[in-house]
């Protein structure tokens, strides 16, 4: 199962194809890989399809938007090929359409990869793993974890602040200047409280014997085992397999250069 893979290994396994994919400008490579990632996600995790679709769908529209814009404004090196149709001063070429679709597919690949990571990874374990595998300083990782706890309280406080100001009649302030001032009114108490809380948490952590040194024992021992390497090999290996196949079939296009 993906959720039991070591988070640090998982992160690297996802970043490598993520970065390399951005160089391929054909359609075949990202499309094949996207199908693989989606299939892999559902085969080896228990993410409900409905939840996945709920997060994924908005990105489909965003990707379509990207594709359309790229198709319209393709740079000269890519906009070769037959002119499909023209309107106003735009010329839609086959080259442009290809690049557009490729971009959309690449974006969706990133989204699918990110979702595979986010929906199967526990934030605490991710931080612990970064600390144990990548030797990130505990000061940083525990700091991030403590900050993570604040998000819901921050939202609640903003809500209360808005109500308090409404009672005072601030909502009645008019004009751009009034709006600007209003923003400052929210920012100062929110910041003041956030700083105060951060200080308190820091003191509480130190008073429990936290020194920020690496010399500590671990309750959750984050190990890297065979399963993690199998995962790594499948995600990264498949990527290279897809690129190779694409090359064999003559589809591969890196930065506009056809191979």
């Amino acid at each position, binding site marked *: 199962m993906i959720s039991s893979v070591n988070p640090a290994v998982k992160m690297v396994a996802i970043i490598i194809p993520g970065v390399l994919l951005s160089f391929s400008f054909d359609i075949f490579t990202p499309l094949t890989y996207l199908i693989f990632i989606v299939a892999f996600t559902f085969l080896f995790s228990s993410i409900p399809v409905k939840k996945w679709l709920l997060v994924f769908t908005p990105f489909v529209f965003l990707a379509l938007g990207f594709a359309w814009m790229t198709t319209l404004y393709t740079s000269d090196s890519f906009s070769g090929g037959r002119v499909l149709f023209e309107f106003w001063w735009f010329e839609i070429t086959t080259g442009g359409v290809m690049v557009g679709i490729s971009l959309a597919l690449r974006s969706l690949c990133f989204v699918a990869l990110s979702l595979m990571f986010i929906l199967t990874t526990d934030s*605490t374990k991710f931080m612990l793993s970064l600390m144990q595998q990548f030797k990130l300083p505990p000061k940083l990782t525990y700091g991030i974890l403590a900050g993570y706890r604040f998000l819901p309280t921050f939202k609640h406080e903003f809500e209360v602040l808005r109500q308090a100001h409404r009672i005072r009649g601030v909502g009645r302030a008019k004009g751009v200047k009034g709006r600007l001032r209003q923003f400052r009114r929210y920012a100062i108490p929110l910041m003041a409280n956030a700083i105060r809380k951060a200080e308190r948490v820091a003191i509480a952590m*130190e008073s429990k*014997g936290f020194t920020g040194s690496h010399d500590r024992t671990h309750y959750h021992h984050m190990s890297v085992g065979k399963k993690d390497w199998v995962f790594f090999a499948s995600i990264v290996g498949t990527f290279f397999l897809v690129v190779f196949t694409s090359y064999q079939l003559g589809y591969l296009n890196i930065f506009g250069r056809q191979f």
Partner: protein
Amino acid sequence: MKKRLPNQIPPVQKQPALIRTENLSFDYEKKQSEPLINDVSFSLEEGEVTLLTGASGSGKSTISLCLNGLYPEAVEGYAEGTVYFRGEDISRFEKGVLNQKIGIVFQDPESQFCMVTVENELAFTMENLKVPRKDMAERMDAVLEVTGLTEVKYRAIHELSGGQKQKVALASVLLMEPELLILDEPTANLDPVSSLEFIQLVAKLQQERKMAVLVIEHQLDDWMAYIHRVLALNKHGKLIADGPRDKVFAEYKETLTAEGIHLPKVMEENTQKLGGQTPQFLEPSLSISNLSFKRKERTILQDLSMTLHKGEFVAVAGENGAGKSTLLQLMAGILSPHKGTVTFQDAPLKKWREEELRKHMGFVFQNPEHQFITDTVYDELSFGMKLNGTPEEEMKEKVTELLGHFQLEGHRLNNPFSLSGGQKRRLSVATMLDETPDVLLFDEPTFGQDAKTTDELMSIVLDLKAKGTTIVFVTHDMDLIDQYCETVFVLDKGNLAFSGTPEQLWDKESLLKQARLRLPYRVRQQKEEGDVYDLVR
């Protein structure tokens, strides 16, 4: 000038005290003529429970952080004098070592954890102590058992109740097996029953483990039975009393009262109910009928109906999370009910124009800072009048009057955020009074305040009430309800479980228990006397 009090503990002892401070001074800024903590010397003995009390802003919490060496280092403050732990200067301890011998539970349950679940938070402490991994599970289960948290081991901390959160804080500190446990107003945010449970848990643990405990607290009553010794600080950070419990409260009674420190209720004479007879209220001011409120499918309030009258002092009580604050927000029209209506002076809230409604109804928030929107106290007080287009002359007059009435004359041009706790509280009330409101709503206004601030607030409130303003308090303070309120509404899991006079409420024992409320001190005392009387008879 007051004479300096003699030290109660003889300086030479066979065994060194657990903690001994000598001429400790501290300030967050550079050295000043009158630092926040000013030349304080005292000892804490092994196995002893000591109470540290003092008015708000007297540096109580700061002292506790000086004892475990976190201050002055953490804040780059200025410090003078020496603190000894079992005779050894604490500045000689390696970083992190002393912290493990002194455990602190802080006041705010929201800001003392760094992990999401109870399990991981407890593990965090043990990892800091370098407990071998194989021993961790056993130690964790043991401490969960002791604190009664076994069932919530895998739960997220933010989902727990305030009482449970404080127990988690206690549990993670107990894992260090501290020699000294410092409790910095740990029950200030808890409902009455959770608060009592926490105190009893600490008392039980103290008796079993014989650790020393330093309690910093405003509300002394529930701790009284367990305290051996009392230390008191005055507003200038000087130690004004140090000695055995009964001796301090007997000898320094006047001094403590003058400093605005809460005395234990046993010592106060005037715990009688004010007013005596409940007056008849005829004119309704605000009424609620069949009101329900949901938040994300979850029912917060269910089918409530109630009527508030002119000049009535109403309390809303109930467990944390029972929907008290939500009810207050619905009354103020800053939330809209899912079902039912709120009627204010013959018109439903929905029909009111926002400006008109705000003129007639005030709301004082728990944290006064939330209400401040300008840079000076003067602007703060005139803000509402400016919006209403009050003429300049009249406005000036009114602001001056408010400044005088709320003892803020000297702070006319200060930034509201720079005021002391009590001044902020007064200002937050004053901002609501540019016109005498018909209804004034308060969300836990006395929480975390010292005796003096509370008394000041109550006299302001009673003044308004006499002018016909309806006062509504959401509060956990049963003594306040007993002393001042005419009507109590008790919420229990979103339902109106009781409405009537406090006297009627005190008779309903099972209801009080269910809503996690307690009897006020006065009534408890009467009951005890009654029981003794029964025995004698």
